[in-house]
């Protein structure tokens, strides 16, 4: 198949060999699990259990609320021992609402209900089951998958793209999953296609994963016999190939319009890990309670991939990989290009956590930033066609709005520019800061406008009250005048009558 050309991009050192070889291991049950109520983009889930309550594996713990949300299920059987704040997997380590479960070691499933034939369900029913299983995008963004399915059905999606790019260095969780569980992934892909009505199904996998490619091609050929052609395509290994916009471009030549969604051009993109979760939910009735996590980095003793229950502490998975063999200069959740720094390993892993990295100082290669020499390495590296150096210059000058003209709103924060900058300028940091700043200004502007509207309405209301009062006063006055006039007329009439009577009498 013909591939389309991408702009920019970088070729960071892959370092996937660290963790790519050993098969996926299942992490032994930890003593306690810390399950945050918000593991997705959107509103946090509302908990339905109480402290002390016994729960079974897969039991609904918290229901999604609002249009964009996802429910949370018990990762194993045990007892709820606390409901409250626990440090979240975020650079700040700020506490977030979390259910703490003491595991009972029995790992007993709740009653699971799986349809006899998931392909016999209507697309809406498939989406409803995906929503009920708490499935979110496992590529990292953790957007509720069912919301995307419903959106695609409404906007006539014709092409389903499965993202097996995994372009982040170090991460091999999708690679291992595709190697070991390709038939399930392919069935999940066909279910997603069934739920959206997409007729063309493309799976993009970077050509640095030949085993995963082979396994997926074999599985899709078998599936093709059963109907439903899934095309597996090798795409060049390059960062950020696994970004949604870039994967669409390389496979279809189409570009998502600025400010729009993939669905606007009839495309839906899902991660291969999400397809596996969908298959598990529809074939076995299992909600999303575990995921594959890559544990890697130069400071990890025995890097590899683990199947980890949601809510497991990062410290537990690092321990399961032999612990640290060197001082970790930086702990990262996710990949090194877009992942976030962890200040501690005592935080739970969630649905969107694809990797835990412990990097050595040499791997991070941190350096203090110097002045921009306008070398335009960042311009060449940007996959979006932006001018990072111009954007940064404006932000530094205190003009974040000015940087929008040079592409701030189109920035996907992939980090390619920061990665290549010879002056080690943290460009993406500047951009994210400016985006936050602009959003805050926007909110302030909206607030001011709302205040102004309220004030205007109030003064108008006051004016109306005054007007009405005056009107009433005038009416009252007029009525009084009329009454007076009438009284006067009656008095005059009476006087006249009296006079006439007097005249009559005197006459």
């Amino acid at each position: 198949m013909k591939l389309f050309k991408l702009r920019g991009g970088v070729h960071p050192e892959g370092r996937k060999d660290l963790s790519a070889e050993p098969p996926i291991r299942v992490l032994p049950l930890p003593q306690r699990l810390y399950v945050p109520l918000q593991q997705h983009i959107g509103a946090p889930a509302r908990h339905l259990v109480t402290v002390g309550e016994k729960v079974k594996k897969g039991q609904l713990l918290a229901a999604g609320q609002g249009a964009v949300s996802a429910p949370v299920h018990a990762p194993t059987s045990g007892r709820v021992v606390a409901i409250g704040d626990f440090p979240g997997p975020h650079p700040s380590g700020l506490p977030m609402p979390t259910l703490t479960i003491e595991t009972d070691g029995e790992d007993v499933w709740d009653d699971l209900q799986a349809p006899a034939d998931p392909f016999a369900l209507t697309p809406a029913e498939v989406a409803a089951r995906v929503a009920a299983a708490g499935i979110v995008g496992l590529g990292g963004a953790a957007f509720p998958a069912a919301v995307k399915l419903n959106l695609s059905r409404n906007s006539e999606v014709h092409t389903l793209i499965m993202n097996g790019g995994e372009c982040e260095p170090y991460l091999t969780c999708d690679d291992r999953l595709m190697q070991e569980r390709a038939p399930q992934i392919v069935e999940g892909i066909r279910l997603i296609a069934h739920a959206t009505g997409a007729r063309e199904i493309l799976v993009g996998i970077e050509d640095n994963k030949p085993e995963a490619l082979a396994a997926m091609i074999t599985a899709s050929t078998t599936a093709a016999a059963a109907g439903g052609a899934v095309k597996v395509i090798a795409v060049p290994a390059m960062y950020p190939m696994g970004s949604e916009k870039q994967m669409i471009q390389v496979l279809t030549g189409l570009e998502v319009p600025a400010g729009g969604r993939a669905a606007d051009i009839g495309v839906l993109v899902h991660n291969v890990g999400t397809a596996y979760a969908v298959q598990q939910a529809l074939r076995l009735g299992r909600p999303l309670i575990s995921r594959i996590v890559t544990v890697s980095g130069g400071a990890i003793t025995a890097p590899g991939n683990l199947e980890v229950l949601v809510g497991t502490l990062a410290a537990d998975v690092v321990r399961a990989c032999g612990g640290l063999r060197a001082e970790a200069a930086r702990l990262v959740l996710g990949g090194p290009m877009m992942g976030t720094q962890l200040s501690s390993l005592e935080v739970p892993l969630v649905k969107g956590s694809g990797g835990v990295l412990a990097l050595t100082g040499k791997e991070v290669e941190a350096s203090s930033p110097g002045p921009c020499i306008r070398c335009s390495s960042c311009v060449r590296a940007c996959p979006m066609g932006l001018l990072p150096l111009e954007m940064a210059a404006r932000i530094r000058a205190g003009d974040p709005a000015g940087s929008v003209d040079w592409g701030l709103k189109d920035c996907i924060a992939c980090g390619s520019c920061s990665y290549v900058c010879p002056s080690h300028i943290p460009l993406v940091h500047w951009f994210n800061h400016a985006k936050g700043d602009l959003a805050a200004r926007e909110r302030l502007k909206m607030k001011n406008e709302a205040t102004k509207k309220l004030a205007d309405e109030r003064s108008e209301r006051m004016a109306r009250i005054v007007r009405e009062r005056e009107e009433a006063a005038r009416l009252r006055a007029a009525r009084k005048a009329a009454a007076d006039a009438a009284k006067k007329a009656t008095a005059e009439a009476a006087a006249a009558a009296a006079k006439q009577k007097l005249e009559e009498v005197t006459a």
Partner: protein
Amino acid sequence: MTPIAHSPHAHAPTSVSRIMVTVMLALTPATLFGFWLYGWPAINLWVVALSVALVSEAAALKIMGRPLRAGLLDGSGLLTAWLLTLSLPPWAPWWLAAVGALFAIVIGKQIFGGLGQNLFNPAMAARVMLLISFPLEMTAWTVPMPITSGAAPGFFEALGITFAGVAPADGISSATLLGQVKTDLGRGLGLDQVLAGIYDPAAFALGQRAGSLGETSAVLLLIGGLILIARRVITWHIPLAMLAGVALPALLAHLIAPGHYPGLAYHMLSGGLMLGAFFIATDPVSSPNSVSGQLVFGFACGVLTWIIRTWGGYPEGVAFAVLLLNAATPVIDRYFKPRIYGRDRKGVALIPAKESTK
């Protein structure tokens, strides 16, 4: 508590000083050749320029209260002085190099705000300043006198030439080809008469001729430039566009009036074109940052160079052309931007061209 680091948590093995060192390495073949060709006085000049650059940069940084270490160790000041030296007459007096280096660092770079802030290429700004202020010293050329030959001045003789102003013996001063041709054409001679005996393309390509310290060997400069492209310090866009900018009008004019306008090889091999195209115009600070902008910039540099060489008051035009285009860089950057993904060339969001799903 350690501050929170933002992604990415990895970095390409690159830094400003690494870039500067790579450029210096790429300049080394042509520089060593210049040292060999013009002997000890050339080496003296190089040492003076680099020392003055270091000292004046340190002084400027100190006055402005900026960190000395980072400012000196990035290597950009040394590179500027190095490039300036390569464009000077090889037996020039020491003060010419000193004044040039001082001007390049203080006026050309630090006054604008230091590394990355200068509008003009500092080395070329200094060269043009020297050319206007000291026209005599800046056009006192020497015939090649390889250091290995008996006629070359020895180490102590060279000190006299550079530092004491001991005039070189008669008969070793010479004119550059561009200068000679300009003068002779002005006297109404035909081109074939002018070039006879003084122009041998093969010797010229190698650099066996009178000229600036490091500009004579087109071949070695080209090799240095290709190293820069291979190491991804520069891209091919500006050099190729600049060479094309000289080549196209030269070819055309030569085709129309061969007796009056020298041809392609003459322009490609003479003056500071190779140094200018690969090492000067590609200065990241003062050149545009988009590919289309760089092509426009390079081509305009080339055309201007040819125009100044052909009709201008000076025989060589590279420095003037580059400075003029440096001034145009902000304008070029404004009008030549890459197209943003999901937008058209004007920056308007693409309208989804929905394929028929029926």
